[in-house]
């Protein structure tokens, strides 16, 4: 890749960073077995999406991106709250948060 692509950071650079963060978050959801770490990886994916929105808002001179970031942040915080409440309830009942104990539907 020619050196001139690295200076003059533009929209593509931010999108590439956001894609990388999204991929790492997705790997976290797929590969980690702790319920809370999976929720944290979902938060990471939502943050990557926020970065995309803000980058587009900046480089397209459009304020709608930042308004979307507001809503995504609110929904993410709300989902984290309920997810943690559920995790605490599960821990109170089973004393385990490793999902390999919860893999089978109780039949």
């Amino acid at each position, binding site marked *: 890749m020619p050196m001139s692509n690295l200076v003059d950071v533009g929209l593509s650079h931010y999108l590439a960073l956001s894609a990388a963060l999204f*991929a790492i978050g997705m790997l976290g959801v797929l590969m980690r077995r702790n319920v809370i770490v999976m929720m944290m990886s979902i938060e990471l994916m939502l*943050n990557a999406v926020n970065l995309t929105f803000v980058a587009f808002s900046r480089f397209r001179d459009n304020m709608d991106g930042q308004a979307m970031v507001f809503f995504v942040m609110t929904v993410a915080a709300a989902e984290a709250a309920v997810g943690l409440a559920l995790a605490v309830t599960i821990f109170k009942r089973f004393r385990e948060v490793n999902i390999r104990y919860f893999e089978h539907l109780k039949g």
Partner: protein
Amino acid sequence: MTLTAQDLLFYILGGLSLASALGVLLMTNPIYSALCLALTMVSLAGLYASMQAWFVAGVQLIVYAGAVMVLFVMVLMLFDLKSEVKAFSRGAVAGFMKLVAVGLMTGAFLAAIYNSADTLLGTSLAANVDGTASTKALAQMLFGKYVFAFEAMGVLLLIIAIGAVALSRIEGGTHADE
């Protein structure tokens, strides 16, 4: 060719956020993962500030890094888990397929970005505004065009608060049988 402060900021903060995101994925102790995620959020706030989105950066610090991640860390400290023995999913074949799948998806994203770089260049760059003016524009958008979604968020937060309190009142606990 000059490397401006904007470029340097992007590379430093972007590198920091990538490194701490990898820390979230790879650390076996979940509390370390949570602290790495907090560092990722702080570096993302720095990136937003470098893109002149001042209010979004502030809200990211206050809400995400200062409240949501503190909640995660507090819950993990209450659980008192030992360092995980089986932190990653078992099965070599399944693990390999997951890696390949995510790699293909990322490759597709990056190829799309690289190929469309010509149309993305030459876009209209927003003017550099200071914090108050950009916040005013954001507020006008939130209360004007998206006012319905804004009020719906309020209702959502109310429902979430009631739900969390209801979940925490379920009977039983780790010492309930004793």
